[in-house]
């Protein structure tokens, strides 16, 4: 099976604009989400990770998801942000996506992940883990309280069981060309073959990711701002 090159797109749930994020702190509007998705679709990128930065505000997420559900995307799509036990049945009624991305549920809502695993299969569940490494200690982001925290006990074991794949976002490199911090892999107890990396990913990082057997990468800025060939990167 081939190494995958996907793209992360953030969606503002109110304006339905695509956002570009820098270092997990600042956003810039890229344009209408419909245009950005159409562009990526034409580009034949391997998959799109569409994230709504909800920070626990799930009502906005479900409205945004329903508004974009009739867009024609013939590219595999993962969506996430604000999906919880209350809205999951509405979201999965007629999925226009193949997979769902979770963050806060990884910490405290295993029943949601278990239920989804029964309804759509474990292949549909992707964990989204933004991280920073401070003074040699890994901290991961929990969107429920909008904080980076130390990794809870048994977190990797639990995530490995409930999630099919993980997207690791280097939040300090996001939106830059400074390269992904591969040091994070030293902290993980999760199979490399089920990991995608994101945040500042460069062409050299793609080669490294392939060499060490990761599942793929999710590119942020470069795909939207730089003319380069996805085929060459593959």
């Amino acid at each position, binding site marked *: 099976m081939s190494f995958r090159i996907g793209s992360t797109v953030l969606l503002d749930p109110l304006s339905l604009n695509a956002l570009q994020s820098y270092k997990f702190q600042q956003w810039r509007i890229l344009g209408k989400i419909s245009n950005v998705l159409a562009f990526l679709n034409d580009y034949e990128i391997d998959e799109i990770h569409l994230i709504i930065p909800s920070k626990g505000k799930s009502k906005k997420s479900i409205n945004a998801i329903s508004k974009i*559900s009739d867009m024609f995307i*013939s590219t595999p799509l993962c969506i996430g942000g604000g999906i919880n036990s209350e809205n999951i049945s509405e979201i999965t009624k007629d*999925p226009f996506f193949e997979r769902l991305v979770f963050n806060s549920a990884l910490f405290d809502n295993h029943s949601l992940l278990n239920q989804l695993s029964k309804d759509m299969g474990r292949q549909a569940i992707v964990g989204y883990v933004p991280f920073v490494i401070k003074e040699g200690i890994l901290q991961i982001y929990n969107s429920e309280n909008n904080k980076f925290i130390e990794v809870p006990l048994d977190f990797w074991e639990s995530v490995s069981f409930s999630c099919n794949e993980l997207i690791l976002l280097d939040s300090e490199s996001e939106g830059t060309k400074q390269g992904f911090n591969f040091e994070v892999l030293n902290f993980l107890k999760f199979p490399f073959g089920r990991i995608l990396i994101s945040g500042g990913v460069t062409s050299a990082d793609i080669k490294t990711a392939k060499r060490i057997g990761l*599942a793929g990468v999710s590119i942020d800025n470069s795909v939207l701002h730089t003319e380069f060939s996805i085929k060459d990167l593959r």
Partner: protein
Amino acid sequence: MLLVNIIDLGLGNVSSVENWAQKSLLSPKRVSKPSQLNDGLIIIPGVASAGEYMLRLKKTKLDQEIIKRYKYGQKIVGICLGFQIMTNYSEEDSGTECLGLFEGKAVYLDNKRTHNGWEKFKFDVREFENDINFSKRRKKTISGRVYFNHELKVEINDNSIIHVLDNGITSYSFKDNLFGFQFHPEKSQKTGVELLKMLV
């Protein structure tokens, strides 16, 4: 425009399949009960679980209608879960009796693996045209890639045409007027659109 019936039981990625059909210049129609079916292609979509899907097929009596229409020669396409439930049995949901259009079963991948991503796809209808009723088109071959996202695989035990990947996964199977795809043609970009045009 050629007609396409998409089975819509409130489960599965119906809208994605609908978009795929429109992109292929076909005329899709959502079908929730037997009386709504026309003589066009029938598509059973994926992205759901076998137990609940079969329950709803039986409740609406679409299970028997699909079997009847298969016997009359109507073309039926199953995608991912739709392909898996064309067999006799699926291991999903503690075991589920399925439609039995293909002799075979759907079993979990070894070691609870999943299979996500793209595989190369080469297809030449001339290899099958004595056995299978493809559309008469000038274009006879497809060379591209297709997208997989699943945790069960199909094992076929009859004389159907099957294509198995190097990793042991049945990529597709054809028999008479049946077309089963483990991959998602509706999410396989240009390759998927070309494939649907060959089917109808």
